[in-house]
């Protein structure tokens, strides 16, 4: 569905996106993760035909994004990281305006609007002024706006930003529904735990560069290869270090007076062997645990907090 090759965007001397390359398959949900200022929004704007890249290419369904923006606009539903609503329009008028802007014939619009309002659970607000909607409802309305022309690819920049937990869950459920409908989705978010649950693929970007990209399983597996065991003891720190480093041939390091960290790629049997050795040597253990590999950890491992 999407192919990005060596995409760069600079503003004067400032390089916002630096030779970015990645691809997104049909029907995938691609999570675009990165710290503030990493270049996520710039990349999404280029894909949404709102910016020209300085160099590089991107293709959506085989169409060059820079060279055929009219065709791309028909293929893409872009949702920026702000609401962008006309307060003096009613909900159905708002959707009708955008439907007409996508050149959808008037006789088809009524059904499309009804279907979208049903999908977004906004039917009861059909006659309400956009101004009167809650933040979550406005976000759902914006999502409906992206869908009026039935795009194959949705580009959603921070769709859950600023929403309360209930509204976030509602948006997440809608995105799952859209995935089931066969839409390809690129989504950026700072709420990483939500992306793990929702996304099939991830791209982690920092300072305009892609630092990791692939399926969620691949990235988690890759980061697991750099996992560790954290061991907390009440005393006998030196004996514990000696057993691990000399008797077991591993290389633990002392984090503080009570905590050891042991880089570890082994399986559960090997973990049990280390634990048994320490217990049999009479080391007063408090805890022995493998560090959890969630998206936050992966993100922290892969990014260095570089802001351009």
């Amino acid at each position, binding site marked *: 569905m999407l192919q990005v090759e060596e995409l760069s965007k600079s503003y004067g001397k400032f390089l916002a996106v630096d030779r970015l390359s990645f691809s997104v398959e049909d029907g995938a949900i691609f999570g675009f993760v990165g710290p503030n200022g990493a270049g996520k929004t710039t990349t999404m704007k280029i894909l949404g035909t709102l910016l020209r890249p300085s160099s590089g290419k991107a293709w959506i369904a085989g169409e060059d994004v820079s060279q055929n923006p009219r065709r791309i606009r028909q293929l893409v539903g872009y949702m920026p990281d702000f609401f962008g609503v006309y307060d003096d*329009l009613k909900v159905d008028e708002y959707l009708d305006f955008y439907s007409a802007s996508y050149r959808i014939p008037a006789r088809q619009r009524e059904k499309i609007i009804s279907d979208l309002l049903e999908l977004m659970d906004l039917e009861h607000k059909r006659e309400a002024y956009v101004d009167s909607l809650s933040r979550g409802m406005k976000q759902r309305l914006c999502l409906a706006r992206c869908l009026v022309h039935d795009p194959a690819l949705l580009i959603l920049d921070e769709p859950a930003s600023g929403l309360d937990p209930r509204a976030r869950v509602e948006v997440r459920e809608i995105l799952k529904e859209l995935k089931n409908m066969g839409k390809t989705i690129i989504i950026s978010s700072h709420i990483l735990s939500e992306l793990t649950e929702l996304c099939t693929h991830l791209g982690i970007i920092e300072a305009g560069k892609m630092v990791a990209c692939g399926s969620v399983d691949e990235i988690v597996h890759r980061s697991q290869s750099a996992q560790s065991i954290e061991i907390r003891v009440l005393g006998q720190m030196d004996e514990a270090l000696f057993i691990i480093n000399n008797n077991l041939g591993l290389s633990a390091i002392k984090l503080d007076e009570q905590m050891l960290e042991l880089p570890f790629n082994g399986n559960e049997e090997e973990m049990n062997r280390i634990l048994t050795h320490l217990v049999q040597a009479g080391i007063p253990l408090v805890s022995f645990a493998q560090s959890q590999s969630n998206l936050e950890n992966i993100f922290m491992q892969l990014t260095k907090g570089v802001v351009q």
Partner: protein
Amino acid sequence: MKSLVLNPILAKEFRSRMRNWKSPLMISLYLGLLGLITLAYYWMQQKRGFYSGFGPDVGPQIFIILSVFQLLLLSFVTPALTAGVINGERERQTFDLLLCTRLSSASIVLNKLLASISYILLLVIASLPVFAIVYFFGGVLLSDMGRVILVSMATAITFGVIGIFCSTLFKRTQVSMVVSYVVVLLFLVGTMAVTVFLQGIQTGPYPRVTAMYFSYANPLVALFSIFPNQAAGVGIMSSFLGGYRTYGYNAAVSQALSPWQYNFIFDGVLIIVLLLLTVFLLDPVGRFKRLRKNPAVVETEAESAPAEG
């Protein structure tokens, strides 16, 4: 072409504008002011005792006063309607959403302009009953009235395009509003000042005529060239009319067109140039910018356009 002008922006702008309480208020104020000016003038004439009844000049003079005030009011109203249309979308954060749709930049600009001009046309049409008072007194031809409406609308469109251009050029509405009003003021006062200056430094009849052409950019000069010759008050503008009138020296024979026609041509050229610039500034990845980068690409796209529907 049909899709350029018959598009949802126009419908939305009409709906939003007429839903707003400001529109009826503006129309009421506009008509109230024109009516008040007419009544005040007639009352002053009666008070001075110049006319015991309806003098032959009353009609043309009311016509001149109404036309000038209408032009000044439109000059004041138009930038307010147009100088915030594009950066207003930016401030509401709806601009990117518009660009993402299948509406072209040209279509967005033309429809925003059309929506504003339609509202101005509404003001002009609403003022016709006030203008009709002139026909109680006589002395004004219907063709003169038609020309006044034409010049007023051309001026409003020109100032409207200036407003939209400023709205695209500047990110903040306040800045574009101020710049638009300054430009309008330059048209109304600056052109006269430059004409007077050029007349002062030049000698002989032909250079004076050249200076006159400069003054034809001024819509007030264009307006005064329409008014009935015998009406008192036209003489005030005679030095800017380049002898088109019988006042001052007569260079009219050497002029192929009247000042209001020159003004029309000037407005037309300015409108086209500014609209092209506005569309160029507005389009993020548009045809002009792609053309600048790779002319072959645009040719290829043009070939594939019909198939795209």
